[in-house]
């Protein structure tokens, strides 16, 4: 940007210095104090129109305010030969000889310093300006000449995690979180302001921030996350101990603690827990709509609940389903496995279809209808009201009942790109069927891309968690505790899949 001003401005500065600009800027553009505001209110009007006008300019040569619209400032410039004026909206200097605004380094600095000072006192908002290194920063950069260049083959952001005793469940979630694009941007931009002043070393968000620093430091030696583990044990007691825990449970517990520790930063969160604006809610929270339709009067009762993840059944057709009809309504594409009633293979889309289909609740589970005022047989349907920026799908592979605990190893094929359009609430029609014709134009806004997969190997008694994460848009890596190795997309898509992480492909304004 040309910060040399113009010849006319330079000659003005030689004659009158920077004081005229300083005064105008401080009194009428910053106008921080109560007194200054009063002065501004009383004197900022066009001297010709005798009233306040948009794009007022203050003459730098004399005390005159003129508007731009009716060209009163132009006229003043011409008549009095006062060629310089300051626009009162932004502090830009107009040179009528040059016919345009001119930008002068010295004046820009004065303006910026005045604003910064006023912003420090909380009187005025500091404007966002591009980073200009200070002399101290330039010196630092010169003293540390080593630069890290990010190339295609760069491994920055990849780091192994030491297993501290069955902590592979934690390691996988940490890998997934450190590779969640928006979360990464948030922490690398140092956006977290710790709310726990008394014991900052108890803040899980601060620890997460430090973790991101560790991952992006370029250090290749595996990181030992003992502090993170300790904090998790402290804040989520149910996860404490050296036993193998469920990665999904850890994920939800971690999000919950981070969400709680973020609170207080953004307004409105104290009164309404559902409207928290913390980074976790911004990224992970979606809205799940539940519609219960009374079979008698057709009245629909709707509730919307926030969610951080979607837990999906794999298509088991056992006695858990109340309605015998559902046995034949199986939507899985694979054959039924005789003894266990689990299909041999299914797809993520099928699981989602099953999740969002209208379900008849059965005569033993009548719901009170608000219109009829008595218990009626109803159908219930779940659909996505609001999609989160990052969607986590949890495949329910672990069955716990009084009789047994077992793992369902059904292969679930999941895509690299997922379109959630057909599972949205907006697609639900009166019959409760979702319009799922293939010919529909898929909305850009509902398209998701896979970026992390957490896998569980082994049985429910002794197992091990590993994960795949995506780096640089199309490079995949396998994370097995301390061991990071390159992987192919096919390997990822062929893996069993327990937790699937997708992020929205296109971010849109609301």
């Amino acid at each position: 940007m040309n910060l040399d001003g113009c010849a006319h401005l330079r000659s003005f500065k030689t004659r009158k210095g920077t004081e005229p600009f300083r005064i105008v800027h401080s009194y009428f553009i910053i106008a921080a104090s109560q007194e200054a505001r009063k002065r501004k209110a009383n004197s900022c009007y066009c001297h010709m129109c005798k009233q306040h006008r948009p794009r007022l300019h203050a003459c730098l040569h004399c005390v005159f305010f003129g508007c731009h619209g009716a060209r009163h400032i132009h006229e003043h410039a011409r008549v009095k030969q006062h060629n310089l004026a300051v626009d009162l909206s932004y502090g830009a200097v107009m040179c009528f000889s040059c016919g345009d605004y001119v930008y002068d380094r010295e004046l820009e600095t004065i303006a910026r310093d005045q604003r910064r000072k006023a912003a420090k006192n909380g009187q005025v908002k500091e404007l966002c300006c591009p980073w200009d290194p200070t002399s101290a920063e330039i010196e630092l950069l010169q003293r540390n000449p080593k630069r890290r260049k990010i190339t295609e083959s760069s491994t920055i952001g990849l780091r192994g995690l030491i297993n501290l005793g069955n902590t592979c469940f934690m390691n996988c979630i940490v890998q997934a979180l450190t590779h969640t694009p928006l979360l990464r941007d948030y922490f690398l931009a140092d956006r977290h302001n710790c709310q726990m002043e008394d014991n900052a070393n108890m803040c899980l968000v601060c620890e997460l921030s430090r973790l991101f620093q560790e991952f992006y430091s370029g250090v290749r030696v595996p990181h030992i996350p003992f502090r993170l583990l300790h904090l998790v044990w402290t804040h989520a007691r149910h996860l404490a101990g050296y036993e193998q825990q469920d990665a999904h449970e850890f994920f939800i517990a971690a999000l919950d603690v981070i969400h709680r520790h973020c609170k207080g930063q953004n307004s409105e969160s104290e009164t309404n827990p559902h409207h928290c604006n913390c980074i976790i809610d911004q990224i992970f929270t979606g809205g799940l709509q539940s519609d219960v339709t009374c079979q008698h009067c057709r009245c629909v009762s709707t509730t919307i609940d926030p969610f951080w993840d979607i837990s999906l059944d794999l298509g088991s057709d056992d006695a858990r389903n109340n309605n015998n009809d559902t046995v034949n309504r199986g939507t899985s594409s694979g054959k039924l496995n005789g003894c266990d009633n689990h299909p041999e293979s299914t797809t993520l889309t099928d699981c989602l279809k099953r999740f969002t289909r209208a379900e008849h609740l059965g005569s033993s589970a009548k719901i009170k209808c608000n219109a009829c005022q008595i218990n009626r047989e109803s159908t219930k349907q779940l659909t996505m009201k609001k999609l989160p920026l990052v969607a986590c799908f949890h495949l329910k592979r672990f069955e716990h009942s009084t009789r047994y605990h077992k793992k369902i190893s059904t292969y679930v094929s999941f895509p690299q790109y997922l379109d959630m359009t057909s599972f949205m609430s907006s697609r639900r029609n009166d019959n409760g069927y979702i319009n799922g014709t293939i010919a529909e134009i898929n909305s850009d806004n509902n398209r998701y891309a896979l970026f992390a997969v957490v896998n569980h190997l082994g049985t429910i008694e002794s197992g091990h968690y590993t994960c795949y994460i995506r780096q640089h848009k199309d490079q995949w890596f396998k994370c097995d505790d301390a061991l990071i190795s390159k992987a192919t997309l096919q390997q990822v898509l062929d893996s069993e899949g327990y937790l699937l992480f997708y992020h929205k492909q296109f971010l849109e304004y609301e």
Partner: protein
Amino acid sequence: MRMKEKINQKLIETGEKERLKELLRTQLIECGWRDELKVHAKEIVKERGIENVTVDNLIAEVTPKARASVPDAVKKDLLQRIRTFLSQQPGL
């Protein structure tokens, strides 16, 4: 005309004008309005060349579209806030 002046003065004196401006700025950024116009302005500069465009040119070209594309919700909200402010001012 007198009333308009009085209102404007009150807004500036109390600092409410700055607050409202800030709020408006945020809303217009959040709904993408500013970025759309930025793109438009950049296109104009690209087409004509940076040497051949003045700030006044840009303002003249961009303003009609800018005014027309302010979302109704934003207008409504600002109007409501100004009304609320005025109702709280004694003697106006």
